[in-house]
């Protein structure tokens, strides 16, 4: 008498779940700090449900079949949420692989007398679960990559803020290396802000630029010239001694540009250009 594996497994669903939970709970990699046992059993049940339901339609022979799509969706969800909760990929992988033990355990009991069939079915289930395990890894990596991409975007966004320090004075701290694409963003942002706020002075602070080579200097000169074309004055501040040394050693001519060592002195110069004066107020102490 040949028994249908799918039927057996569906019948023994409760047993499988219990067995699986037991394996997971004794596993030393159980992370009670990240997820409560109730939550864990909820996730496990969801996965077993999805798997057993698809076994109705899908054949165990082909683990890549589209029929397993619902199971993969559930796995994707679990993998993503676990990635966010701080699980390591190994822990998520172990979670899926431990299902194999449960399934095979039940199967062994049921097919005790059919060694050939037991062997065949075990291989199939093994392959299927391995496949699912790999799928979780893929999703895990995809999730991480999305995070990295978002961060890259954020860095480009936040790394070029234009600050209005005074009426008619803008400051732009540049942090990180200036390459051509960055310069383009910096220039566009700065010029647009100059138009929007009709400021006459822009201070470019390069204290966060690790190194200035001839290319970076070229970019700076371009930005300054463009600002001048717009009718605003551009001051470069935050020049560290090492940068001054490299600039001179490279023979870069910055004589046409107003350069200051600190943002404070640049601001002071800007006040001078706008004929403003900053004074200490004399408090009425008497």
């Amino acid at each position, binding site marked *: 008498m040949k028994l249908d594996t799918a039927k057996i497994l569906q019948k023994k669903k409760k047993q499988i779940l219990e067995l699986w939970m037991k394996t997971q709970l004794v596993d030393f990699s159980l992370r009670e700090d990240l997820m409560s046992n109730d939550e864990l059993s909820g996730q496990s049940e969801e996965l077993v449900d999805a798997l057993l339901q698809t076994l109705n339609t899908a054949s165990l022979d082909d683990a890549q079949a589209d029929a397993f799509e619902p199971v993969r969706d559930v796995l994707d969800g679990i993998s993503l949420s676990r990635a966010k909760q701080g699980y390591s990929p190994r822990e998520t992988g172990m979670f899926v692989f431990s299902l194999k033990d449960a399934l095979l355990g039940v199967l062994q009991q049921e097919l005790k007398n059919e060694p050939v069939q037991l062997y065949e079915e075990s291989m199939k289930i093994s392959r299927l679960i391995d496949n699912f395990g790999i799928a979780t890894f893929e999703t895990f990596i995809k999730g991480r990559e999305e995070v990295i991409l978002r961060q890259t975007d954020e860095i480009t966004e936040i790394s070029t803020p234009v600050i209005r320090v005074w009426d008619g004075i803008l400051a732009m701290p540049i942090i990180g290396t200036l390459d051509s694409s960055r310069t383009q963003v910096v220039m566009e942002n700065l010029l647009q802000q100059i138009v929007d706020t009709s400021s006459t002075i822009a201070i470019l602070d390069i204290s966060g630029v690790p190194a200035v080579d001839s290319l970076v200097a070229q970019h700076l000169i371009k930005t300054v010239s463009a600002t001048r074309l717009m*009718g605003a004055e551009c001051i470069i501040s935050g020049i560290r001694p090492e940068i001054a040394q490299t600039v001179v050693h490279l023979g870069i001519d910055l004589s046409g540009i107003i350069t200051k060592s600190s943002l404070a002195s640049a601001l002071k110069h800007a006040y001078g250009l706008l004929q403003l004066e900053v004074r200490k107020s004399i408090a009425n102490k008497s």
Partner: protein
Amino acid sequence: MDKIPILKIGHFLMVAIQVDLYDRLALNLEADLIQAVSKYNAKGVLIDISSVSIVDSFMGRILGNIANMSKILDAETVIVGMQPAVAITLIELGLPLKGIQSALNVEKGMELLQQKLPAEAPLEDDDSTF
């Protein structure tokens, strides 16, 4: 044929370029403007290019020419209202427009020209009695 109007405001001439400058128009503008500078004995020329969104090297050269010619006729040239994209294009083309002053808007451009004027202020009286 399109013609760009040249307005006289006090000692200054003002031109607002509001159409796409094709080459012939630009050359005509150059000639007309220099004629006007000489005719009105203008002390400054204000060119508003706030509605110009496309420039090429020819346009950059014309602007440079106007500035240099006016300079010879003792008039300052100020370009006002340049769009960021235009400024970036000119820089990328390697045309930093040396010798031309720029200002953010007409108001600031006028201020700039007025600042240049005081040295010649005594002349003003002579002009009025003329």
